[in-house]
C-alpha cells in the first residue's frame, strides 16, 4: 500500500537528467534509485513491525481490561443468562482459552484479512471500514489541502511582514485556534452557517431521504464544506506558525540580502527564495498531522453527524464493539505511518540538500 502511494505521487527516484548531464549521471541516478528501493523496502518492514506491535498492544490492553465481552455484546439482558449459557458462549467464542492462544487465533485471522464481525453494524469489520473510510478520507483530504494552502500562504505573509499588524493578527489567530477545541469551533460554525444563515445543511453527508448512492456531487460537496472548514481551521495554526518562522529565517539570510542588493523586489524574493525554503518543513508538518487530522475528524463527524469512520469509532466505543475498535486502530496506525513516510519524502523532495536516497 505504501509503495503504491509513493509511486503515484511521483516521489520515488527523481527523473533522469537531460542528455547534457554527462557520463556520470546515469550510474549515479541508478545508484540513487537502488537506494530508494532499499529504503522503501525497509519502510514497509517498519510498517509491518509497527502494525504487529500495535496489534499486540491493543490486544493486551483489551485483554487486561475489566470489560466483559459477553456482557458488552448481550447488553442489559446479560442478567437473564444462566452461568451455563455464559460458559457455552465463552466456549463458542474461545474465551476459555488462555490469552496467548486467543491472540494467535486472532492474529492468524488478521493476516488472512479477516478483522472479525462488527457487533454494532452486523457486518464484517473490513466492510464497515471500507464503506466509511472514503467519506472520512474525502473530508480529511479537503481539510488537509485547505489547511496547507491557508497555513502556508498566511505563514509567508506573516513572516515577510514580521512585527507589523498583518503578522500580529495572523499569529494571534494561529495561537488562538491552537487552543480552541475542534468540536467547539464546529458547533459555532454550525450555528452561524447552518442554523442562523441556513447556507449549509445541518447534518449528514447527503440530503435527508436520499440513498447514499443517489446524492449528486454538488450535494455531497455542499454537505462536506462545513466539516472540512472546521477540520482545516485546526490544522492551519501549526503550519502557519512554522512557515512564519522559516520565512523569517530566510528573510534574514545572506542570500536574501544579496538578492535585495541586486534590486530584487518583494514578490520576486518570496517566489525565488522564501517559498522553496519554507515548503519542506511545511510539507513535512502537514503530512505528520495526519493522526491529529483523523482525531479531529472523529470530533467533526460527531458535530455534523457525518457518517464516516470517525463516527463509527465513536459508535464502536460507546456500544463496546471491540472488533471494530481494533480494526479502526490498525487502519489509523497505517494511516499515520504512511503520513509520516510521505512527509519525510516530501521534505527530501522539496529540499535539495536532503536528496539522495533514504535513511
Amino acid at each position, binding site marked *: 500500500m505504501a509503495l503504491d502511494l509513493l509511486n503515484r505521487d511521483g516521489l520515488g527516484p527523481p527523473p533522469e537528467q537531460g542528455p547534457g548531464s554527462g557520463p556520470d549521471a546515469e550510474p549515479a541516478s541508478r545508484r540513487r534509485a537502488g537506494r530508494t528501493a532499499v529504503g522503501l523496502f525497509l519502510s514497509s518492514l517498519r510498517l509491518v513491525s509497527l502494525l504487529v506491535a500495535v496489534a499486540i498492544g491493543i490486544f493486551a490492553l*483489551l485483554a487486561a481490561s475489566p470489560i466483559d465481552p459477553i456482557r458488552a455484546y448481550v447488553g442489559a439482558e446479560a442478567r437473564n443468562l444462566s452461568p451455563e449459557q455464559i460458559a457455552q458462549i465463552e466456549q463458542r467464542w474461545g474465551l476459555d482459552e488462555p490469552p496467548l492462544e486467543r491472540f494467535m487465533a486472532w492474529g492468524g485471522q488478521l493476516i488472512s484479512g479477516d478483522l472479525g464481525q462488527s457487533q454494532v453494524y452486523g457486518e464484517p469489520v473490513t466492510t464497515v471500514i471500507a464503506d466509511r473510510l472514503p467519506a472520512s478520507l474525502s473530508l480529511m483530504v479537503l481539510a488537509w489541502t485547505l489547511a496547507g494552502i491557508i497555513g502556508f500562504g498566511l505563514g509567508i505573509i506573516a513572516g515577510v511582514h514580521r512585527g507589523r499588524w498583518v503578522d500580529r493578527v495572523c499569529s494571534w489567530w494561529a495561537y488562538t485556534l491552537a487552543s480552541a477545541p475542534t468540536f467547539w469551533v464546529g458547533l459555532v460554525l454550525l450555528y452561524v452557517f447552518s442554523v442562523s444563515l441556513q447556507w449549509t445543511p445541518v447534518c449528514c453527508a447527503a440530503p435527508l431521504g436520499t440513498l447514499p448512492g443517489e446524492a449528486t456531487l454538488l450535494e455531497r460537496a455542499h454537505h462536506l464544506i462545513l466539516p472540512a472548514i472546521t477540520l482545516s481551521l485546526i490544522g492551519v495554526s501549526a503550519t502557519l506558525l512554522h512557515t512564519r518562522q522559516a520565512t523569517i529565517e530566510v528573510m534574514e539570510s545572506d542570500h536574501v540580502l544579496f538578492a535585495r542588493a541586486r534590486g530584487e523586489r518583494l514578490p520576486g524574493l518570496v517566489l525565488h527564495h522564501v517559498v522553496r525554503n519554507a515548503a519542506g518543513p511545511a510539507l513535512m508538518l502537514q503530512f505528520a498531522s495526519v493522526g491529529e487530522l483523523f482525531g479531529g475528524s472523529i470530533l467533526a463527524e460527531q458535530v455534523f453527524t457525518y457518517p464516516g469512520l470517525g463516527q463509527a469509532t465513536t459508535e464502536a466505543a460507546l456500544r463496546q464493539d471491540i472488533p471494530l475498535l481494533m480494526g479502526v486502530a490498525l487502519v489509523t496506525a497505517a494511516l499515520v505511518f504512511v503520513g509520516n513516510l510521505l512527509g519525510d519524502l516530501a521534505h527530501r523532495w522539496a529540499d535539495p540538500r536532503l536528496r539522495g536516497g533514504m535513511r
Partner: protein
Amino acid sequence: MSTVRARPAPSERGLNRQQRTIATVTLLLILVVGIVLAAGMLTGSANTTALTERSQPPSSEHLFGTDRYGRDLLARTLVGLRLSLVVGGVAAALSGVIAVVLSLIAVLGGRTGAAVVGWLVDLFLALPHLVLLILVAFALGGGTTSVILAVGLTHWPRLTRVLTSVGRAAVGSEFVAVSRALGHGPLRIARTHVAGHLIPHLLVGTVLLFPHAILHEAALSFLGLGIDPGQPAIGILLQESMRYLSAGHWWLAVLPGLGLLLLVRIIDRIGENVRMLLDPRSAQL
C-alpha cells in the same frame, strides 16, 4: 541559537522584561485561582434548577444565560473549568512522572534501555492520539476515573523525547565521566547530575501538557466517552448544547467553549512565560 536580536526593547514602564514576565505569570495565576474560587462558591447554583427561568439568553442576571432546566450557565461553566483544571493537573503530573522515569531509563539504561523506551514512544505515537485515548479509556472501563487515567497515561511521549535528549547531553558531559570513573552507580548519577538538568524542561513541559490534557478530556466527554454525564464538565455542556442549537440557543454552545478556550490560552501563556524565565538565553533580556 538566538542570533543578534533586533532591538533589546527598552521598557516603557520602568520594568525590565524579566519583571514584566513575572508580573504576567502572577496575574495569570491569580486568574486561575479566581476561577477555582468562584467555582467553589457557585457549586450549589450550578445544579439548582429554576423552572421559571428556563432557556434564557444572557442577561445581567444570568451573564451566560440559563439552560433548559433553568440552571445558571456561568456557574456550570466555572465548575466545568475547575473540573478541567483538576483533570489537567492530575494528567500532567502523571505524564510528567512517567516521562521522567522513562527518560532516565533511556539515558542511563544503556543501549537496551534507550531502545526499549524509544520503541515505547514510537508505539504510543503510532496511533492518532484521540484513537489511543478512546482505546485506553474504553479498556479502563469508562467513567471519570478512567478518563483522567487515560489522559495521564498517553501524554508523555513527546516530553519523554525532550527529556531524553536533554539528559543525553548531560550524560555526555565531563562531570558525569568523572563521576563514573569514581565508581558511582547510575542511580546516584541520575540523582546528582542528570535530574538538575531535567527539572526546568520538566516544569515547562508539564505546564504545556496541561492544555492538551484539558482539550483531550473535553473531547472525550463531548463524544460521551468521558466524564459521567451528570457532572457539568465543559465537554458534557457542549454535548448537551447540540440538542438546542437548532432552537437557536446559541449561548449554550458558544459561552462554555469560549471559557475553555480562555483557560487553555491562559495556561499556555503561563507555560511560555515560565519557559522564558527559565531559559538562560531569554531570561536576562
